[in-house]
């Protein structure tokens, strides 16, 4: 680990100007649960680390009839600790509960997980399934990007020099809708997803037909994948096992994973289908108001 400067920003503008001055030699620290490890293990280098978790805007959230506005630095434990969020966005809670152990969750944020931009990130399929909008502040002002377009390559994203993710905007939870996230890991804890799958559905009032759906996968491509076609194909279909199996087959087909230390290509393609099916089951059951616990 090389020596670096450490600065604490208290406003978005201050953070942006600090980051802009150092470019790619500057790193943002929120929970630090990825950054500190990467610096210590020489996986990343930095001349400047900017702590942004003292910026009020980044550590607040509000849940209204318009949806959830989640500050990019809000730690995971606050998300699953809020009963209203648990009710409205259970898929987000699925993700927040499995990013590291509880010590990690008391520091790590969903915004940080997104900005780390790992192909295997546990929050990103959920954010894609919920159709989240990313709010970004930068030297040129503010802009928004749909989360499905945020990641560009392993560890890379659309953030430009001096830019900072400030907030994640979740659309209002629609009636008869539900979301779920599942991942597969060989152990039961302390692991990175071999495949992760997020699903969101909106059913008709009877809970029988899928009106809209969004499916996403992690760890089967260089970036988390939005399954646009498979999602669109679900619209108008009955919420039955046969439909879920079709979606699973589509997910397996579109997954383009690699062989690595966490699994083989064939196994991951197969798992993509298994997990999409299981997460769809979860999303549908929740949309019907039933209880469902993620378990792989």
């Amino acid at each position, binding site marked *: 680990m090389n020596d670096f400067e450490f600065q604490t920003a208290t406003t978005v503008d201050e953070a942006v100007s600090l980051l802009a001055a150092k470019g790619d030699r500057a790193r943002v620290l929120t929970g630090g649960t990825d950054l500190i490890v990467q610096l210590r293990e020489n996986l990343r280098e930095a001349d400047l680390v900017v702590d942004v978790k003292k910026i009020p805007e980044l550590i607040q959230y509000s849940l209204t009839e318009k949806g959830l506005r989640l500050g990019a630095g809000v730690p995971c434990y606050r998300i699953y600790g809020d009963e209203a969020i648990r009710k409205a966005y259970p898929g987000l809670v699925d993700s927040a509960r499995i990013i590291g152990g509880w010590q990690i969750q008391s520091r790590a944020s969903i915004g940080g997980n997104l900005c780390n931009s790992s192909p295997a990130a546990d929050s990103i399929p959920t954010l894609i399934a919920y159709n989240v909008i990313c709010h970004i502040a930068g030297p040129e002002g503010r802009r928004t990007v749909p989360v499905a377009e945020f990641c560009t390559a392993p560890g890379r994203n659309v953030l430009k020099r001096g830019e900072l993710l400030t907030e994640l905007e979740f659309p209002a939870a629609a009636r008869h809708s539900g979301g779920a996230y599942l991942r597969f890991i*060989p*152990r039961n*804890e302390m692991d*990175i997803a071999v495949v992760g799958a997020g699903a969101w559905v909106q059913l008709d009032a009877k809970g029988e037909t899928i009106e809209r759906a969004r499916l996403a996968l992690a760890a089967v491509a260089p970036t988390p994948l939005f399954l646009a076609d498979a999602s669109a194909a679900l619209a108008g279909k009955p919420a039955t096992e046969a439909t879920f199996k079709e979606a699973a087959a589509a997910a397996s087909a579109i997954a383009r994973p690699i062989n690595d*230390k966490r699994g083989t290509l064939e196994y991951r393609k197969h798992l993509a289908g298994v997990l999409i099916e299981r997460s769809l089951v979860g999303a549908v059951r929740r949309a019907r108001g039933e209880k469902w616990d993620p378990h*792989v």
Partner: protein
Amino acid sequence: MTPKSERKKYKVIGTRPIRHDGADKVTGRAVYGADLRLAGIVHGKILRSPHAHAKVKSIDTSAAEKHPGVLAVVTRADMPNLKNKIADLGEGSVNLAHLGANVLAHDKVLYKGHAVAALAAVNPHVAEEALKLIKVDYEVLPSVTWVMDAMQDDAPLLHNDVFTKSMGKRASKPSNVPTHIHFEKGNIEEGFQAADVIVEREFKTASVHQGYIEPHVSTALWNQDGHVTVWTSTQGAFTARAQTAELLQIPVSQVTVVPCEIGGGFGGKIAVYLEPVAALLSRKCGRPVKMVMTREDVFEGTGPTPGSFMRVKLGATKDGKLVAGEAWLAYDAGAFPGGVIGPGAMCVFSCYELPHAKVDGYDVLDNKPKTQAYRAPGATQAAFACETVIDELAEKLKIDPLEFRLKNAAKEGTRRVDGPVYPRVGLVETLEAAKNSPHWKSKLEGKHRGRGIASGYWFNIGLKSSVAANVNNDGTVSLIEGSTDIGGTRTSIAMQFAETLGITAEAVHPRVGDTDSVGYTDVTGGSRTTFATGLAAHEVALDIQRQMRERAAILWECEASQVQVEDGAYCHKDKKLTFAELAGQLGHTGGPVVGRATVSPEGASNGFGTHLVDVEVDPDTAKVTILRYTAIQDAGRAIHPSYVEGQMQGGAVQGIGWALNEEYVYSDQGRMENASYLDYRMPTALDVPAIETIIVEVPNPAHPYGVRGVGETPIVAPPAAIANAIYAATGVRMTELPMSPPRLWAAMSTGKKS
């Protein structure tokens, strides 16, 4: 399982006193190697090879030496010439050139992570930064990391001075196979002719690491008077001293090794890595040099256990008697000769009465870290192969697998394929205990579930131990022993001493001595410490008891032989003094009483175990969940039952790790891809159920209290037991470790059924 009459016989043995080092351990006061702080201490780091196999053409350290924060740099040039030097390090002779070249590479690097150079700097960060200033010119060579590839004629050759030794003959051409061993018993052809059913299968296992929680750490001070002191995390202070002295070519008396508390070893902390390097750096800079490995260093630079390829063939008659067994085993040794194929070959059929048997074993070099002992080294791989074939044979014969094992179990008088005839052993008793266990009697219901059973064996050795004791005038005794305490042996040794002397465990204050304060003692390994150092402690107690009788005789003006010892008290006619009362009178009966003993028991104490496991396999993901696990073992005598249970549980959990997920994943360039606990998947607390234990006690005839040693046997059976359970759950016989989800899924989806 101890009969009531025997339980009564003992006052201390079989009880569960609080361990003597407990308060220090739970409060964090125990001093581990990393806690050491000395005035003027500096920090050393090692530069490691990025290549799996390369010639080291040159090393340029000049830029690093100029760095203001750097105090010393060392390379192979600073090591004495060790060519053709052989040393006896207490467990057989060792080629010092190989040991030295593992500590700091000489003309070649032989694995990724091989140490090439080292430096000492004012702090660890400067040291790490300055490593980048050392320039090494490599000529990269082709590498090989799979044992069967390494045996091919056209495989990259690791050493041009290694020739296959086979049946006392040395080959003329250098090769990657240093040793071929061969054992035979009876007539193998006749044996298989008599068989009605024969099963032959091939097996593979991955390299796995001991995975101790504490990384290697050593601090050395080469004093201006030439004396070297080393504080280190080691399983054996005396072997660390011998290796350090030999590698530095200085007399052993010039080296003192102070063993710190140790955070796990499992066989991996016997060979030295950092000690001689820290000493060389200290000699150059005149300051104490501390070196701490990272986890990556530990995975890439220290000994895993071998990857292996095995073929096992067993034959039985239709009434279920084994008649013949044949095994062909190739274990990788990593970069230097001397892996663990020997014990693997001896153990493969160790649980069975086999009239005809043949075993061939090969020690194979490849571009991996030099393998080291790992809990029952070599036996777990072999048991995975043998016990899986046994299971399949029982299935084909339509005999219950437990009954089949009982029918063929090794017992007193059974001759193992490598020669030794067992004295009284307890395999049958562990099988009977398994049969009567609540686990075996319970019904396993539900889809995708299966139950497996397997047995395992480890020798357990004797070797040399020394213990000394000082009687304090308050009736307590300070006990100094040479065995580093990994699994609670201070207490299990003190308890045997207390039992013999008739005092309480709490009245004994055990301490692990450094190499200048206690007699020579071999490593804490081979499950020997409670057995052999315990035996020494027993003899020290007898020595003290003899002296105490003499002191009582002075007081009572009688002959020592007239003083009786009853219940720990000393009596003559109507006179009686407790041990404490007599201890208070030592000052005026001749002064202090000091006892000492050294022992060197020979032969194995023979530990057998049988494990039961229930699993559930997810039919879609092939993930295996361990539902229930019972470890049953013959401990001979459980001195402190909690520690025996702890060893059985710990071994079972490590074996579950081998079975399900642990493996070195190598890239095509021979680089380990998963050198961290994130991707090297040891089981966590959430991955294993509470391991149930049943201690069987068939006393070892070669120990006064019947101790057999328990540490290693419990890792042997788990992978086979789990493979057999997976078969019962899925109909798929797994022949490769680990049985990780991708591998099991592939086997399940190709419907590879036997």
